């Protein structure tokens, strides 16, 4: 018998490595155009093509992951957070190829690839075991809903990457007046946020590789409606050294870290539950590692990152980027409407007897839709173009990511089964 799940998890590793190689090729394409001994246009084209081929190979491996897992699990792999983020990264690559071939833009990959790489790595943070579907998820509409929603969001993601290039391209790093300083600050701030996301991944995978573990116990006493006293004991395992332990908890076990044998602080009481403590601790670690990484990069290039990247982007036509960003979002919008709202409503009608229930995830899908419809109105009817439109696209992507992941991590609801351990 073929072990489909093994093939599938190997394919992910192959895809990840190929994406990394592709990114390196694209980085050479962007950076090398300023080497003195070359013709910039041919250099970009050549290395851009190498990057594209590697990305296509990586995507093939990624598809192998998808279909092998489908064969192994017996249902399309779109039903927990790991599978969902993997499907999203597959879709981002598909959207990237569509836009890449529609506009023949050689350098879009330089920004789309790192986004995919971060997403694949981020997916791997979550438990990847195949789970049998709970009854509500056994529906064709679930698959249509998730697949199309993910594809629509993938186009928004590509729109974001083009917008990000545009922001870095547009920002004038020599200006020193107030508006100029503000523009520089926000461009740099965006990059810091991205580095913090990378910091999160470095922290999680670093400590996971080292096998770090700490465990805490929290007892809660509640009184139910009939006046019975219910004592509950919750345990939580930390994968990162506890800077913050859960509120009102005892240490069960803790590996020492750099001479630290006791948690340094306690999570404030308004953060409910043991998992809130763990999540807060992870956020703190991400910021610390992210800022360390950022500091290191600053030491290496000796100037703000935006300023360091900016010269390499000068050869790119900003109007093209503006058009690409907007068109990617416009293409994604109907797909998102159909997948994330209409198919979701049909499914909700069949599974939960109502097409709309103001569940947090539903509300955030609606918020995303309203946001992008405001974007389209501002752009088409009020002529917002260029840098303003680019910032809207960047914030829009933040809204998308909050809808996809933030809601699951911060707000519980019907969709919370989508698998956060």
């Amino acid at each position, binding site marked *: 018998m073929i072990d489909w*799940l093994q093939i599938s998890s190997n394919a992910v590793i192959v895809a990840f490595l190929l994406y990394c190689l592709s990114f390196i090729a694209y980085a050479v394409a962007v950076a090398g155009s300023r080497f003195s001994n070359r013709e910039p246009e041919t250099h970009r084209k050549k290395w851009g093509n190498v990057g594209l081929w590697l990305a296509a190979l990586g995507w093939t491996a990624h598809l192998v992951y998808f279909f092998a897992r489908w064969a192994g*699990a*017996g249902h399309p792999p779109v039903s927990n957070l790991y599978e969902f983020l993997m499907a999203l990264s597959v879709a981002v690559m598909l959207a990237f190829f569509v836009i890449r071939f529609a*506009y023949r833009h050689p350098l879009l990959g330089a920004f789309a690839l790192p986004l995919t790489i971060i997403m694949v790595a981020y997916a791997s943070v979550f438990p990847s*075991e*195949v*789970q*049998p*579907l*709970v*009854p*509500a998820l*056994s*529906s064709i509409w679930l698959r249509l809903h998730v697949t199309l929603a993910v594809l629509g969001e993938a186009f928004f993601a590509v729109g974001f990457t083009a917008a990000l290039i545009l922001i870095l391209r547009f920002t004038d790093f020599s200006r020193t007046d107030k508006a100029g300083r503000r523009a520089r600050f926000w461009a740099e701030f965006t990059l810091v946020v991205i580095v913090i996301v990378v910091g999160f991944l470095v922290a999680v995978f670093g400590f996971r590789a080292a096998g770090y573990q700490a465990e805490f116990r929290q007892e809660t006493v509640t009184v139910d*409606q009939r006046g019975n006293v219910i004592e509950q004991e919750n345990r939580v395992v930390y994968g990162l050294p506890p800077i913050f332990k859960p509120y009102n908890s005892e240490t069960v076990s803790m590996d020492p870290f750099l001479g630290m044998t006791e948690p340094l602080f306690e999570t404030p009481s*308004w953060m*409910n539950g043991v998992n809130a403590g763990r999540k807060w601790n992870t956020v703190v670690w991400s910021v610390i590692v992210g800022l360390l990484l950022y500091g290191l990069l600053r030491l290496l290039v000796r100037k703000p990152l935006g300023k360091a990247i900016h010269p390499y982007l000068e050869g790119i*036509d900003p*109007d*093209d980027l503006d*058009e690409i960003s907007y*068109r990617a979002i*416009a*293409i994604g*919008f*109907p797909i998102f*409407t*159909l997948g994330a*709202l*209409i198919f979701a*409503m*049909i499914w909700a*009608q*069949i*599974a939960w*007897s*109502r*097409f709309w*229930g*103001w*569940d*947090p995830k539903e*509300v*955030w899908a*609606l*918020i995303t839709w*309203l*946001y992008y*419809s*405001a974007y389209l*109105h*501002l752009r*088409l*009817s*009020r*002529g917002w173009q260029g840098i303003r439109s680019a910032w809207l696209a960047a914030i829009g992507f933040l809204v998308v990511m909050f809808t996809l992941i933030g*809601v699951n991590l911060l*707000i*519980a*609801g019907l969709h919370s089964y989508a698998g956060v351990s």
Partner: protein
Amino acid sequence: MALIQNTKCECGHQNPPGTVLCEACGKPLDEELAASDSVLEMRYDGMARRSQKSRPNPIDRVWNFFSSVKVAVWLIITTLVAASLGTIFPQESAFVNLTDPAGYYRETYGTAGAIYYALGLSRTYESWWFITLLVMIGASLVICSLDRVLPLYRALTRQQVRKHLQFITRQQVVYVGPIEGDPGAWTVKFAEILRRRRFKVRTDGTALLAEKNRFSRWGPYVLHIGLIVFLLAVLSRGIPGWYMDEYVGLDDGELEQIPQTKYFVKSLGFSIELYSDEEMPEHLKGELRPKQFITKAVLYECVAWCDDVTRQPELREVASHDIRVNSPLSYRGLRLYQYDFAESPRLISVRPVLVDKRTGESYGPFELPMRHPPLTYSAGPFTLELRDSFPEFGLDENGEPVTLSREPNAPAFVFVIKGPGLPEEGVPYLYFPREADRQRFGQDRINGEAAELFEIRVQSMEDVEFSTYTSYLNVRVDRGMPYVWTGAAICMIGLLMGIYWNHRRIWLRIDDGVLSLGAHTNKNTFGLRAEVAAALAKAGIVVEAKSLDNRRKET
């Protein structure tokens, strides 16, 4: 601002006030605009809109407010922010029965929760201000669309082929250059090239107008109509009888009336289907994971004696279905969904015997259902009259027997036994079918002397029928649903029309051997540029697509 504006164009056309570009030839009417050389704003082809009246009356003011896209965007943003506030803490509607919401929010979320509740954010989506926002968006959809679609329709159906030179050279995509040969022949040749690219072409001597995918301009309006239909369909729930949301809990074999209807539903049994070991991944083998929840249900319609408490209603079977998650029972707009289940072992019926302790003889058995028990039973020479029944037996503060609920959790029956050797008025006897209740409440102690005479007991487990689960079904009527889906379908059609096709127009005229070509699209300038460049190349004029972009020349 001048109140009287001269709106007559030099071409002789009389335009209504508020017109930006002459309806006939397209020349900019505003003198300042005519003097500049910026790219023309082509919205609605420069037509006057109703909202641009110079002396608005109060109705006009309301119209003007809602017809503004700026206002529409603010409404969208406000709704978006309002909706997000409702997701901070769970809404009250997320709980099945929340008796003290204020207390719940205060205890669970502290001060923040108390403030959240006090502000009414725990019922955001039912609040008057949220609904008002939605209604305002609806108004904005209607008025924005009407304000624009009519002038746009007029502009597009009454297009003149020969346009003012300024109109052509101030489009987004422009080419100006000399041509060789006869201008008339060139125009005919170019018209043919454009026709092959599926343009509809009209010519007027050496002037030409080519157009394609005009229908795409109606996309946004179709989308807005769809949204209106959708919003109205949602509001239709307010029509009496159009919307119902009820829950029915059924033990196996139980028949219940669906509240507010003449329908009855009976469960033939609830079951849980589990994943088999072969279907489970390696690390979960041996665990119990539910695959499906099924209630075998039969739906009856009451045809007579429905509201008569003294008689059994007459029922007719109308539908039956294995209700599963994702597969409701559906009958004439009534839908029954598998909603929940509870593991609550309950008796359905028992078949006890009556033992005469004086003789040691037993009579019966007789059938005693827990729900809707008959009023008399006969066991040998004895008859039992049911005086009282308690589905969930309990004692109130005065020590009087009461029933705590209507569910048979601790059923008790008071019989009066009549027969040979007994007083005329009979012997009262309290019977608990469940052994545990018999011990707990002390059946023999309560019965006193009667306990010496009789015993009612079940002989074996075969005479006991019980249900392990209670299945909860959600009963829905939502007559607005077909309109909801129609609205959604119209929205999608509008979106596809408007976004995946673009309206493209090309004007040209040849004056003294110089070709002036202008092209306009409502979206995707990139594609239009490429299309014009390709058409020009066919006609022997090779230009780079990017160089046609008029906006670039400015910067």
